[in-house]
Protein backbone atom coordinates (compact mmCIF):
# COMPACT_ATOMS: atom_id res chain seq x y z
CA UNK A 1 0.00 0.00 0.00
CA UNK A 2 1.29 3.43 -0.76
CA UNK A 3 0.08 6.75 0.49
CA UNK A 4 -2.07 8.63 -1.99
CA UNK A 5 -0.62 12.00 -2.59
CA UNK A 6 -2.22 15.32 -3.27
CA UNK A 7 0.68 17.07 -4.90
CA UNK A 8 0.92 20.79 -4.18
CA UNK A 9 0.05 21.55 -7.76
CA UNK A 10 -2.98 19.27 -7.68
CA UNK A 11 -4.11 20.69 -4.36
CA UNK A 12 -3.66 24.29 -5.38
CA UNK A 13 -5.35 23.54 -8.66
CA UNK A 14 -8.37 21.97 -6.99
CA UNK A 15 -11.42 23.96 -7.89
CA UNK A 16 -12.32 26.40 -5.17
CA UNK A 17 -15.98 25.80 -5.94
CA UNK A 18 -15.46 22.07 -5.36
CA UNK A 19 -13.74 22.78 -2.06
CA UNK A 20 -16.57 25.09 -1.05
CA UNK A 21 -19.08 22.34 -1.84
CA UNK A 22 -17.10 19.88 0.30
CA UNK A 23 -16.90 22.32 3.21
CA UNK A 24 -20.65 22.92 2.97
CA UNK A 25 -21.12 19.17 3.05
CA UNK A 26 -18.82 18.92 6.09
CA UNK A 27 -20.60 21.68 8.02
CA UNK A 28 -24.04 20.46 7.04
CA UNK A 29 -23.36 16.90 8.16
CA UNK A 30 -21.71 18.15 11.35
CA UNK A 31 -24.79 20.18 12.25
CA UNK A 32 -27.43 17.84 10.81
CA UNK A 33 -28.55 16.57 14.20
CA UNK A 34 -29.12 20.09 15.49
CA UNK A 35 -30.79 21.55 12.40
CA UNK A 36 -34.31 20.21 12.97
CA UNK A 37 -34.20 21.67 16.47
CA UNK A 38 -32.83 24.98 15.20
CA UNK A 39 -35.49 25.09 12.49
CA UNK A 40 -38.16 24.61 15.18
CA UNK A 41 -36.60 27.39 17.27
CA UNK A 42 -36.47 29.68 14.24
CA UNK A 43 -40.10 28.89 13.44
CA UNK A 44 -41.14 29.56 17.03
CA UNK A 45 -39.18 32.80 16.96
CA UNK A 46 -41.02 33.88 13.83
CA UNK A 47 -44.39 32.95 15.31
CA UNK A 48 -43.54 34.67 18.58
CA UNK A 49 -42.51 37.84 16.78
CA UNK A 50 -45.79 37.94 14.90
CA UNK A 51 -48.20 36.87 17.64
CA UNK A 52 -46.29 38.43 20.55
CA UNK A 53 -46.19 41.88 18.99
CA UNK A 54 -49.78 41.29 17.86
CA UNK A 55 -50.82 40.90 21.49
CA UNK A 56 -49.07 44.13 22.40
CA UNK A 57 -50.52 46.29 19.67
CA UNK A 58 -53.94 44.69 19.10
CA UNK A 59 -55.20 45.65 15.66
CA UNK A 60 -52.50 47.89 14.27
CA UNK A 61 -52.99 50.49 11.52
CA UNK A 62 -51.99 49.31 8.00
CA UNK A 63 -48.44 50.70 8.05
CA UNK A 64 -47.65 49.18 11.45
CA UNK A 65 -49.25 45.90 10.32
CA UNK A 66 -46.86 45.75 7.37
CA UNK A 67 -43.92 46.36 9.71
CA UNK A 68 -45.00 43.49 11.92
CA UNK A 69 -45.89 41.14 9.08
CA UNK A 70 -42.51 41.56 7.37
CA UNK A 71 -40.48 41.87 10.56
CA UNK A 72 -40.44 38.17 11.45
CA UNK A 73 -38.67 37.15 8.23
CA UNK A 74 -36.02 39.84 8.70
CA UNK A 75 -35.55 39.00 12.37
CA UNK A 76 -34.93 35.37 11.41
CA UNK A 77 -32.28 36.17 8.85
CA UNK A 78 -30.51 38.60 11.15
CA UNK A 79 -30.70 36.31 14.17
CA UNK A 80 -29.09 33.44 12.29
CA UNK A 81 -26.19 35.62 11.24
CA UNK A 82 -25.68 37.66 14.37
CA UNK A 83 -26.58 35.07 16.99
CA UNK A 84 -26.25 31.50 15.68
CA UNK A 85 -23.07 32.19 13.72
CA UNK A 86 -21.04 33.68 16.59
CA UNK A 87 -22.25 30.91 18.89
CA UNK A 88 -21.25 28.20 16.42
CA UNK A 89 -17.87 29.76 15.66
CA UNK A 90 -17.14 30.40 19.35
CA UNK A 91 -17.85 26.73 20.06
CA UNK A 92 -15.57 25.66 17.19
CA UNK A 93 -12.84 27.89 18.65
CA UNK A 94 -13.25 26.40 22.11
CA UNK A 95 -13.18 22.77 20.98
CA UNK A 96 -10.19 23.36 18.66
CA UNK A 97 -11.89 22.41 15.41
CA UNK A 98 -11.57 25.92 13.98
CA UNK A 99 -7.79 25.91 14.42
CA UNK A 100 -7.55 22.55 12.66
CA UNK A 101 -9.84 23.61 9.84
CA UNK A 102 -7.62 26.64 9.33
CA UNK A 103 -4.77 24.27 8.49
CA UNK A 104 -6.70 22.97 5.47
CA UNK A 105 -5.55 24.26 2.09
CA UNK A 106 -8.70 26.24 1.29
CA UNK A 107 -9.21 29.99 0.90
CA UNK A 108 -10.25 31.64 4.17
CA UNK A 109 -13.46 33.06 2.75
CA UNK A 110 -14.76 29.56 2.00
CA UNK A 111 -15.27 28.99 5.76
CA UNK A 112 -17.53 32.04 5.86
CA UNK A 113 -19.30 31.05 2.65
CA UNK A 114 -19.93 27.46 3.75
CA UNK A 115 -21.36 28.54 7.10
CA UNK A 116 -23.41 31.17 5.33
CA UNK A 117 -25.04 28.61 3.03
CA UNK A 118 -25.73 26.20 5.87
CA UNK A 119 -27.15 28.83 8.23
CA UNK A 120 -29.23 30.40 5.44
CA UNK A 121 -30.83 27.00 4.87
CA UNK A 122 -31.55 26.80 8.59
CA UNK A 123 -33.15 30.26 8.53
CA UNK A 124 -35.26 29.64 5.46
CA UNK A 125 -38.21 27.68 6.95
CA UNK A 126 -38.64 30.13 9.81
CA UNK A 127 -38.40 33.15 7.53
CA UNK A 128 -40.98 31.83 5.06
CA UNK A 129 -43.31 30.68 7.80
CA UNK A 130 -42.96 34.00 9.61
CA UNK A 131 -43.96 35.77 6.45
CA UNK A 132 -46.95 33.52 5.84
CA UNK A 133 -48.16 33.75 9.43
CA UNK A 134 -47.51 37.50 9.55
CA UNK A 135 -49.53 38.27 6.43
CA UNK A 136 -52.34 36.04 7.64
CA UNK A 137 -52.40 37.44 11.20
CA UNK A 138 -52.38 41.08 10.17
CA UNK A 139 -54.36 40.67 6.95
CA UNK A 140 -51.83 42.40 4.72
CA UNK A 141 -50.90 41.72 1.13
CA UNK A 142 -47.29 41.48 0.01
CA UNK A 143 -45.99 42.75 -3.30
CA UNK A 144 -42.78 40.80 -3.81
CA UNK A 145 -40.04 42.46 -5.81
CA UNK A 146 -37.67 40.38 -7.96
CA UNK A 147 -34.91 42.06 -5.91
CA UNK A 148 -35.94 39.86 -3.00
CA UNK A 149 -33.78 37.11 -4.53
CA UNK A 150 -30.76 39.37 -3.93
CA UNK A 151 -31.96 41.23 -0.85
CA UNK A 152 -32.51 38.21 1.40
CA UNK A 153 -29.09 36.62 0.66
CA UNK A 154 -27.42 40.02 1.07
CA UNK A 155 -28.98 40.50 4.51
CA UNK A 156 -27.88 36.96 5.44
CA UNK A 157 -24.34 37.64 4.15
CA UNK A 158 -23.91 40.87 6.11
CA UNK A 159 -25.36 39.44 9.32
CA UNK A 160 -23.25 36.28 9.06
CA UNK A 161 -20.07 38.20 8.25
CA UNK A 162 -20.59 40.53 11.23
CA UNK A 163 -21.34 37.48 13.38
CA UNK A 164 -18.13 35.82 12.19
CA UNK A 165 -16.07 38.89 12.99
CA UNK A 166 -17.57 39.06 16.49
CA UNK A 167 -16.75 35.41 17.14
CA UNK A 168 -13.24 35.54 15.74
CA UNK A 169 -12.15 38.79 17.32
CA UNK A 170 -13.63 38.27 20.79
CA UNK A 171 -12.95 35.54 23.31
CA UNK A 172 -15.51 32.71 23.02
CA UNK A 173 -17.31 33.52 26.29
CA UNK A 174 -17.52 37.21 25.40
CA UNK A 175 -18.74 36.39 21.88
CA UNK A 176 -21.51 34.25 23.39
CA UNK A 177 -22.49 37.11 25.71
CA UNK A 178 -22.51 39.67 22.91
CA UNK A 179 -24.67 37.39 20.78
CA UNK A 180 -27.19 37.16 23.65
CA UNK A 181 -27.30 40.94 23.96
CA UNK A 182 -27.89 41.19 20.21
CA UNK A 183 -31.02 39.03 20.60
CA UNK A 184 -32.62 41.68 22.84
CA UNK A 185 -31.48 44.58 20.71
CA UNK A 186 -32.80 43.01 17.51
CA UNK A 187 -36.11 41.92 18.99
CA UNK A 188 -37.00 44.90 21.16
CA UNK A 189 -34.83 47.89 20.35
CA UNK A 190 -34.45 47.95 16.60
CA UNK A 191 -36.62 49.33 13.80
CA UNK A 192 -37.44 45.94 12.31
CA UNK A 193 -40.87 45.37 13.76
CA UNK A 194 -41.10 48.78 15.46
CA UNK A 195 -41.14 52.03 13.46
CA UNK A 196 -38.07 54.22 14.06
CA UNK A 197 -40.15 57.15 15.39
CA UNK A 198 -41.16 55.05 18.41
CA UNK A 199 -37.55 54.54 19.47
CA UNK A 200 -35.75 56.99 21.80
CA UNK A 201 -33.92 59.63 19.77
CA UNK A 202 -30.43 58.41 20.74
CA UNK A 203 -31.29 54.88 19.69
CA UNK A 204 -32.85 56.05 16.44
CA UNK A 205 -29.64 57.99 15.71
CA UNK A 206 -27.53 54.94 16.48
CA UNK A 207 -29.63 52.89 14.06
CA UNK A 208 -28.87 55.40 11.32
CA UNK A 209 -25.32 54.03 11.41
CA UNK A 210 -25.88 50.41 12.40
CA UNK A 211 -26.74 47.81 9.74
CA UNK A 212 -29.95 46.50 11.31
CA UNK A 213 -32.34 49.27 10.17
CA UNK A 214 -31.02 49.32 6.57
CA UNK A 215 -31.32 45.53 6.43
CA UNK A 216 -34.94 45.80 7.59
CA UNK A 217 -35.55 48.60 5.05
CA UNK A 218 -34.16 46.45 2.28
CA UNK A 219 -36.29 43.45 3.21
CA UNK A 220 -39.44 45.59 3.50
CA UNK A 221 -38.75 47.27 0.15
CA UNK A 222 -38.37 43.81 -1.41
CA UNK A 223 -41.38 42.24 0.29
CA UNK A 224 -43.87 45.11 -0.03
CA UNK A 225 -42.43 47.00 -2.95
CA UNK A 226 -45.59 49.01 -3.65
CA UNK A 227 -45.51 50.62 -0.19
CA UNK A 228 -41.87 50.75 0.93
CA UNK A 229 -38.74 51.82 -0.89
CA UNK A 230 -35.07 51.85 -0.04
CA UNK A 231 -33.69 55.33 0.64
CA UNK A 232 -30.29 56.42 -0.64
CA UNK A 233 -28.77 56.87 2.80
CA UNK A 234 -29.73 53.42 4.16
CA UNK A 235 -28.49 51.92 0.89
CA UNK A 236 -25.12 53.61 1.32
CA UNK A 237 -24.90 52.57 4.97
CA UNK A 238 -25.72 49.00 3.98
CA UNK A 239 -23.14 49.04 1.19
CA UNK A 240 -20.52 50.30 3.64
CA UNK A 241 -21.44 47.57 6.14
CA UNK A 242 -21.30 44.95 3.39
CA UNK A 243 -17.73 45.91 2.54
CA UNK A 244 -16.78 46.32 6.19
CA UNK A 245 -18.35 43.03 7.29
CA UNK A 246 -16.81 40.95 4.50
CA UNK A 247 -13.39 42.58 4.86
CA UNK A 248 -13.56 42.21 8.65
CA UNK A 249 -14.56 38.56 8.51
CA UNK A 250 -11.91 37.77 5.91
CA UNK A 251 -9.26 39.57 7.93
CA UNK A 252 -10.33 37.86 11.14
CA UNK A 253 -10.20 34.47 9.41
CA UNK A 254 -6.76 35.19 8.00
CA UNK A 255 -5.41 36.51 11.28
CA UNK A 256 -2.52 34.63 12.83
CA UNK A 257 -1.53 34.97 16.47
Amino acid sequence: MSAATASPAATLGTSVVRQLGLLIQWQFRRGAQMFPLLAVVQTLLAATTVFGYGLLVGDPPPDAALFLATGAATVNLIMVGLVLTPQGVAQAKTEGSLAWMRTLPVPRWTFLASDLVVYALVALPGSVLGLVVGTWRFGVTLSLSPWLALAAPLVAVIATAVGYSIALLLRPQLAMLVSQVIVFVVLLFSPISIPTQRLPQWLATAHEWLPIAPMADLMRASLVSDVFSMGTRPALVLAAWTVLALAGANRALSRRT
Partner: protein
Amino acid sequence: MTPEVLVVSGLSKRFGSGPGAVQANDAIDLSVSAGQVVCLLGHNGAGKSTLVGQVVGLTVPDAGTVLLGGIDAVAHPAAARALASVQAQANVPITGLTPRTAIELVGRVRGLRKPAARTRADELLQALDLITWADKPAEKVSGGVARLTAFAMAAIAPGALVVLDEPTNDVDPVRRWLLWQEIRRIADDGKGVLLVTHNIHEAEHVVDQVVLLDEGRVVTHGTPAQFVASHPGDTLEDVYIHLVGHQDARGSATAAAA
Protein backbone atom coordinates in the same frame (compact mmCIF):
# COMPACT_ATOMS: atom_id res chain seq x y z
CA MET B 1 21.05 14.16 -1.22
CA THR B 2 17.52 13.85 0.20
CA PRO B 3 15.60 17.11 -0.19
CA GLU B 4 14.63 18.94 2.96
CA VAL B 5 10.88 19.50 3.14
CA LEU B 6 11.06 21.66 6.26
CA VAL B 7 13.82 24.02 7.30
CA VAL B 8 13.30 26.06 10.46
CA SER B 9 15.96 28.67 11.22
CA GLY B 10 16.31 30.93 14.24
CA LEU B 11 12.61 30.64 15.05
CA SER B 12 11.57 32.69 18.08
CA LYS B 13 8.20 33.41 19.58
CA ARG B 14 7.36 35.28 22.75
CA PHE B 15 3.90 35.53 24.30
CA GLY B 16 2.93 38.48 26.45
CA SER B 17 5.15 41.28 27.68
CA GLY B 18 6.86 42.40 30.86
CA PRO B 19 7.74 40.05 33.71
CA GLY B 20 4.97 37.60 32.82
CA ALA B 21 6.14 37.15 29.24
CA VAL B 22 6.91 33.62 28.06
CA GLN B 23 9.64 32.89 25.55
CA ALA B 24 7.90 29.90 23.97
CA ASN B 25 10.49 29.36 21.22
CA ASP B 26 14.03 30.72 21.30
CA ALA B 27 16.15 30.63 18.13
CA ILE B 28 15.11 27.13 17.11
CA ASP B 29 16.84 25.44 14.19
CA LEU B 30 15.68 22.13 12.81
CA SER B 31 15.00 20.41 9.53
CA VAL B 32 12.98 17.48 8.22
CA SER B 33 14.04 15.69 5.06
CA ALA B 34 11.84 13.70 2.73
CA GLY B 35 11.66 10.13 4.03
CA GLN B 36 12.44 11.14 7.61
CA VAL B 37 10.41 10.97 10.80
CA VAL B 38 11.67 13.72 13.10
CA CYS B 39 10.47 13.50 16.67
CA LEU B 40 10.06 16.58 18.84
CA LEU B 41 10.52 15.73 22.49
CA GLY B 42 10.09 17.95 25.47
CA HIS B 43 7.97 18.16 28.56
CA ASN B 44 4.75 20.13 28.80
CA GLY B 45 5.37 23.79 28.07
CA ALA B 46 8.69 23.15 26.30
CA GLY B 47 7.44 24.96 23.19
CA LYS B 48 6.52 22.05 20.92
CA SER B 49 2.98 23.11 20.06
CA THR B 50 4.07 26.72 19.52
CA LEU B 51 6.67 25.47 17.05
CA VAL B 52 4.08 23.36 15.25
CA GLY B 53 1.67 26.32 15.12
CA GLN B 54 4.30 28.40 13.36
CA VAL B 55 5.18 25.63 10.92
CA VAL B 56 1.55 25.21 9.82
CA GLY B 57 0.88 28.94 9.62
CA LEU B 58 -1.44 29.45 12.60
CA THR B 59 1.10 31.55 14.49
CA VAL B 60 3.49 34.22 13.23
CA PRO B 61 7.05 34.02 14.59
CA ASP B 62 8.73 37.07 16.10
CA ALA B 63 11.95 36.13 14.32
CA GLY B 64 13.33 33.41 12.11
CA THR B 65 12.20 31.61 8.99
CA VAL B 66 10.13 28.56 8.11
CA LEU B 67 10.75 27.08 4.68
CA LEU B 68 8.22 24.44 3.70
CA GLY B 69 9.06 22.73 0.44
CA GLY B 70 11.21 25.75 -0.32
CA ILE B 71 8.32 28.16 0.23
CA ASP B 72 8.50 30.86 2.89
CA ALA B 73 5.62 29.64 5.05
CA VAL B 74 5.49 32.86 7.08
CA ALA B 75 5.11 35.11 4.04
CA HIS B 76 2.96 32.68 2.02
CA PRO B 77 0.84 30.70 4.48
CA ALA B 78 -1.75 29.68 1.87
CA ALA B 79 0.87 28.05 -0.36
CA ALA B 80 2.48 26.42 2.66
CA ARG B 81 -0.86 24.98 3.83
CA ALA B 82 -1.08 22.96 0.64
CA LEU B 83 2.23 21.35 1.57
CA ALA B 84 1.44 20.36 5.16
CA SER B 85 -1.10 17.88 6.50
CA VAL B 86 -1.85 18.25 10.18
CA GLN B 87 -3.15 16.09 12.98
CA ALA B 88 -3.88 18.56 15.76
CA GLN B 89 -3.23 17.88 19.42
CA ALA B 90 -6.94 18.16 20.22
CA ASN B 91 -9.27 15.75 18.49
CA VAL B 92 -11.33 17.41 15.78
CA PRO B 93 -15.00 16.83 16.63
CA ILE B 94 -16.69 14.96 13.80
CA THR B 95 -20.14 14.59 15.34
CA GLY B 96 -22.65 13.91 12.60
CA LEU B 97 -20.08 12.14 10.45
CA THR B 98 -18.71 8.62 10.44
CA PRO B 99 -14.95 8.03 10.54
CA ARG B 100 -15.05 6.93 6.90
CA THR B 101 -16.96 10.00 5.72
CA ALA B 102 -14.72 12.37 7.66
CA ILE B 103 -11.55 10.81 6.24
CA GLU B 104 -12.90 10.80 2.68
CA LEU B 105 -14.11 14.40 2.86
CA VAL B 106 -10.75 15.66 4.08
CA GLY B 107 -9.03 13.70 1.33
CA ARG B 108 -11.24 15.35 -1.27
CA VAL B 109 -10.70 18.81 0.25
CA ARG B 110 -6.98 18.12 -0.09
CA GLY B 111 -7.35 17.39 -3.77
CA LEU B 112 -8.18 13.69 -4.18
CA ARG B 113 -10.97 12.70 -6.53
CA LYS B 114 -13.87 10.82 -4.96
CA PRO B 115 -12.88 7.27 -6.06
CA ALA B 116 -9.26 7.82 -4.96
CA ALA B 117 -10.39 9.23 -1.60
CA ARG B 118 -12.68 6.22 -1.09
CA THR B 119 -9.92 3.73 -1.93
CA ARG B 120 -7.31 5.43 0.22
CA ALA B 121 -9.71 5.85 3.16
CA ASP B 122 -10.51 2.15 2.96
CA GLU B 123 -6.80 1.29 2.94
CA LEU B 124 -6.19 3.38 6.04
CA LEU B 125 -9.25 2.03 7.85
CA GLN B 126 -8.04 -1.51 7.21
CA ALA B 127 -4.43 -0.75 8.07
CA LEU B 128 -5.49 0.78 11.40
CA ASP B 129 -8.05 -1.98 12.08
CA LEU B 130 -10.92 0.51 12.11
CA ILE B 131 -13.26 -1.26 9.69
CA THR B 132 -15.63 -2.21 12.54
CA TRP B 133 -15.99 1.45 13.44
CA ALA B 134 -15.75 2.96 9.98
CA ASP B 135 -19.45 3.49 9.45
CA LYS B 136 -20.56 4.14 13.02
CA PRO B 137 -21.68 7.65 13.96
CA ALA B 138 -18.74 9.54 15.45
CA GLU B 139 -20.56 10.05 18.74
CA LYS B 140 -20.51 6.27 19.24
CA VAL B 141 -16.78 5.72 18.76
CA SER B 142 -14.17 5.68 21.52
CA GLY B 143 -11.50 8.31 22.07
CA GLY B 144 -8.86 6.02 20.60
CA VAL B 145 -10.86 5.45 17.42
CA ALA B 146 -11.45 9.20 17.16
CA ARG B 147 -7.70 9.75 17.51
CA LEU B 148 -6.93 7.24 14.78
CA THR B 149 -9.58 8.85 12.58
CA ALA B 150 -7.83 12.19 13.06
CA PHE B 151 -4.56 10.56 12.03
CA ALA B 152 -6.19 9.09 8.92
CA MET B 153 -7.58 12.56 8.08
CA ALA B 154 -3.99 13.83 8.05
CA ALA B 155 -2.64 10.79 6.22
CA ILE B 156 -5.20 10.34 3.46
CA ALA B 157 -3.61 12.84 1.08
CA PRO B 158 -0.36 13.74 2.79
CA GLY B 159 1.43 16.93 1.86
CA ALA B 160 5.21 17.04 1.58
CA LEU B 161 5.22 17.44 5.37
CA VAL B 162 2.91 15.56 7.74
CA VAL B 163 2.66 17.06 11.22
CA LEU B 164 1.41 14.70 13.91
CA ASP B 165 0.80 16.11 17.38
CA GLU B 166 0.41 13.31 19.92
CA PRO B 167 -1.06 10.73 17.50
CA THR B 168 -1.01 7.81 19.97
CA ASN B 169 -3.07 9.41 22.76
CA ASP B 170 -5.95 7.14 23.89
CA VAL B 171 -5.07 4.47 21.32
CA ASP B 172 -4.91 0.82 22.48
CA PRO B 173 -1.54 -1.02 22.28
CA VAL B 174 -2.36 -3.15 19.22
CA ARG B 175 -3.63 -0.25 17.17
CA ARG B 176 -0.69 1.88 18.37
CA TRP B 177 1.59 -0.69 16.79
CA LEU B 178 -0.41 -0.44 13.54
CA LEU B 179 -0.29 3.35 13.79
CA TRP B 180 3.51 3.41 14.11
CA GLN B 181 3.74 1.26 11.00
CA GLU B 182 1.59 3.73 9.09
CA ILE B 183 3.68 6.67 10.28
CA ARG B 184 6.79 4.91 9.09
CA ARG B 185 5.10 4.10 5.78
CA ILE B 186 4.28 7.78 5.17
CA ALA B 187 7.98 8.63 5.50
CA ASP B 188 9.04 5.64 3.40
CA ASP B 189 6.75 6.93 0.66
CA GLY B 190 8.87 10.09 0.54
CA LYS B 191 7.12 12.48 2.89
CA GLY B 192 8.67 14.24 5.84
CA VAL B 193 7.01 13.61 9.20
CA LEU B 194 7.27 15.99 12.14
CA LEU B 195 6.09 14.05 15.15
CA VAL B 196 5.30 15.39 18.60
CA THR B 197 4.89 12.67 21.20
CA HIS B 198 5.42 11.75 24.81
CA ASN B 199 5.33 8.09 23.85
CA ILE B 200 9.11 7.94 23.61
CA HIS B 201 9.48 4.24 24.24
CA GLU B 202 7.46 3.28 21.18
CA ALA B 203 8.56 6.18 18.98
CA GLU B 204 12.21 5.20 19.39
CA HIS B 205 11.76 2.31 16.94
CA VAL B 206 10.23 4.47 14.21
CA VAL B 207 11.92 7.86 14.23
CA ASP B 208 15.05 8.86 12.35
CA GLN B 209 15.93 12.04 14.23
CA VAL B 210 15.13 13.33 17.67
CA VAL B 211 15.05 16.99 18.68
CA LEU B 212 14.85 17.72 22.39
CA LEU B 213 13.26 21.02 23.36
CA ASP B 214 13.40 22.60 26.78
CA GLU B 215 12.16 26.07 27.71
CA GLY B 216 11.79 26.91 24.05
CA ARG B 217 15.35 25.95 23.03
CA VAL B 218 16.81 22.97 21.24
CA VAL B 219 18.83 21.24 23.95
CA THR B 220 20.22 18.54 21.72
CA HIS B 221 19.40 16.56 18.59
CA GLY B 222 20.51 13.45 16.74
CA THR B 223 19.47 9.92 15.89
CA PRO B 224 18.06 7.75 18.69
CA ALA B 225 21.29 5.72 18.56
CA GLN B 226 23.39 8.88 18.99
CA PHE B 227 21.24 9.92 21.94
CA VAL B 228 21.71 6.59 23.66
CA ALA B 229 25.41 6.39 22.83
CA SER B 230 26.30 9.83 24.14
CA HIS B 231 24.25 9.94 27.34
CA PRO B 232 23.68 7.63 30.32
CA GLY B 233 20.82 5.21 29.80
CA ASP B 234 19.87 2.18 27.70
CA THR B 235 16.91 3.64 25.85
CA LEU B 236 15.81 6.95 24.40
CA GLU B 237 13.33 7.28 27.26
CA ASP B 238 16.15 6.82 29.82
CA VAL B 239 18.19 9.50 28.09
CA TYR B 240 15.20 11.84 27.92
CA ILE B 241 14.53 11.45 31.63
CA HIS B 242 18.23 11.92 32.34
CA LEU B 243 18.47 15.11 30.28
CA VAL B 244 15.15 16.71 31.20
CA GLY B 245 15.35 15.42 34.76
CA HIS B 246 18.72 17.12 35.15
CA GLN B 247 17.25 20.35 33.87
CA ASP B 248 14.39 20.06 36.35
CA ALA B 249 16.72 19.15 39.19
CA ARG B 250 18.91 22.13 38.32
CA GLY B 251 15.83 24.37 38.34
CA SER B 252 14.74 22.95 41.71
CA ALA B 253 18.21 23.42 43.17
CA THR B 254 18.28 27.03 41.97
CA ALA B 255 14.86 27.63 43.43
CA ALA B 256 15.90 26.01 46.72
CA ALA B 257 19.08 28.11 46.87
CA ALA B 258 17.06 31.26 46.25
